[in-house]
């Protein structure tokens, strides 16, 4: 029997999509994004964005952070959310993570409507869970992408994003996309894995040794609320961020499976 304080790592084994399908778990997503105190004070838009959607291929969750110095950062971050959806819509069971990220980059560029990509630079973190139980999690740029298990028997897997430090990050539009993406693939046919994505305005201030407990708390606290209530409640939590001096926009989104979809 494994000691709970030393759980094994989460399996990266890849299911062959569509085969050996179990009853389809019900995938749920929750998220919120608020402008940081600095942007509120300056009357500027939130440069973060998040999105989730259900597609024939699976469920998609995205968090994007527009690079602050860019003129159209908020357009870039919204385009990143749409680009992931566009790319997943073209996804087939055999689509590799590299093919997926290449399609995201291409879709993002086409979503900018002729704007200069360098003026729209944005990070892009995503989680895609196919109906066959294939879970792809990762992204381009800084922030947090972590996979935890619902029973806590495996240790959280923090995706080692190539984010840079001291405020520097790789991003869509900065010309370094081809070597900046990091995506990991997991076998979640059992429907035990959950994903947590956060922009750096949140991830910088999170206790890294409490990610599993944080994810548990988020799901227990907000997962039982109605859509209207969790939206308002999570936004309030982000607005009342407890770390002093935090001025960035803040975005947090998470995905988990709860129950089964009737088939």
């Amino acid at each position, binding site marked *: 029997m494994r000691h709970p304080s030393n759980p094994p790592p989460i399996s990266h084994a890849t299911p062959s999509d569509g085969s050996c399908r179990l009853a389809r778990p019900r995938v749920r997503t929750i998220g919120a994004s608020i402008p940081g105190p600095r942007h509120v004070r300056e009357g500027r838009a939130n440069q973060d964005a998040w999105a989730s959607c259900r597609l024939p291929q699976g469920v998609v969750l995205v968090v994007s952070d527009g690079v602050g110095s860019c003129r159209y950062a908020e357009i870039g971050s919204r385009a990143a959310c749409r680009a992931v959806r566009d790319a997943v819509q073209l996804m087939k069971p055999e689509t590799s993570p590299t093919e997926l990220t290449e399609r995201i980059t291409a879709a993002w560029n086409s979503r900018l409507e002729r704007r200069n990509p360098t003026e729209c630079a944005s990070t892009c973190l995503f989680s895609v869970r196919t109906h066959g139980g294939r879970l792809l999690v990762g992204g381009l740029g800084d922030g947090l992408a972590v996979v935890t298990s619902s029973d806590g028997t495996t240790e959280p897997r923090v995706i080692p994003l190539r984010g840079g430090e001291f*405020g520097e990050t790789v991003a869509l539009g900065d010309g370094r996309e081809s070597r900046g993406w990091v995506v990991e693939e997991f076998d979640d046919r059992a429907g035990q894995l959950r994903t947590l994505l956060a922009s750096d305005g949140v991830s910088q201030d999170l*206790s890294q040794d409490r990610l599993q*407990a944080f994810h548990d708390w988020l799901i227990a606290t907000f997962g039982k609320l109605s859509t209207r209530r969790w939206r308002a409640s999570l936004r309030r939590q982000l607005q009342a961020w407890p770390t002093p001096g935090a001025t960035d926009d803040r975005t947090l989104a998470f995905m988990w499976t709860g129950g089964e979809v009737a088939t």
Partner: protein
Amino acid sequence: MTTLSDFTIATPRPLPVIVLADISGSMSENGKIDSLNHALDEMIKSFATEAQDRAEIQVSVITFGKAGAQIHSELTPASKAAWSPMQADGGTPLGAAISLATSLVEDRQRIPGRAYRPAIVLVSDGQPTDEWKEPVKRLLASERGSRADRFALGIGDDADKAMLAAFLGDPAKAVLQASDARQVQTFFRWVTMSVTSRSRSATPNAAPIQPPPDLARDTF
């Protein structure tokens, strides 16, 4: 009841300042070590009075002299730092001090990823007595060291300006030269202003450092 604060860090993001102080024997001449001690004490006191609601300024002093390169004061929030004066004696093992600073900057336990870009300040009055070119190259090539703000001050005519310029690693940046205690203090006032203006900024990583003073005219 569990709240969000149970999962977040309660302190502001740190802004580290690392001072590399020459305490070789020659620093005991003409009151140089006294003026350096006084200027450092003043700088730390100024940092300590800064509001810590946006960034927490932390200071470490690495000395290089008779005992080699060593940590004179660990990286500590300025508001909790107590200054103990340095004594000057021995050679100038600058290379070892640069290596120590590089280790500190790259240490993710002591300077976590959430920290703001550090400032590294080098003060020396003479020629290094150990190999320094490779350590400087390693600092400038390191991911974190290359992004740090770097300040350099030569005290007196014997300071190795080429070495100080190599430490800055940017031809556009000038090595400042002090010939008396007042100019040493002016230099550290500039460092203090540069750091505190960043700590007050809404974007400390993006905030530029202040223009350098003209020490000859004492204009700052």
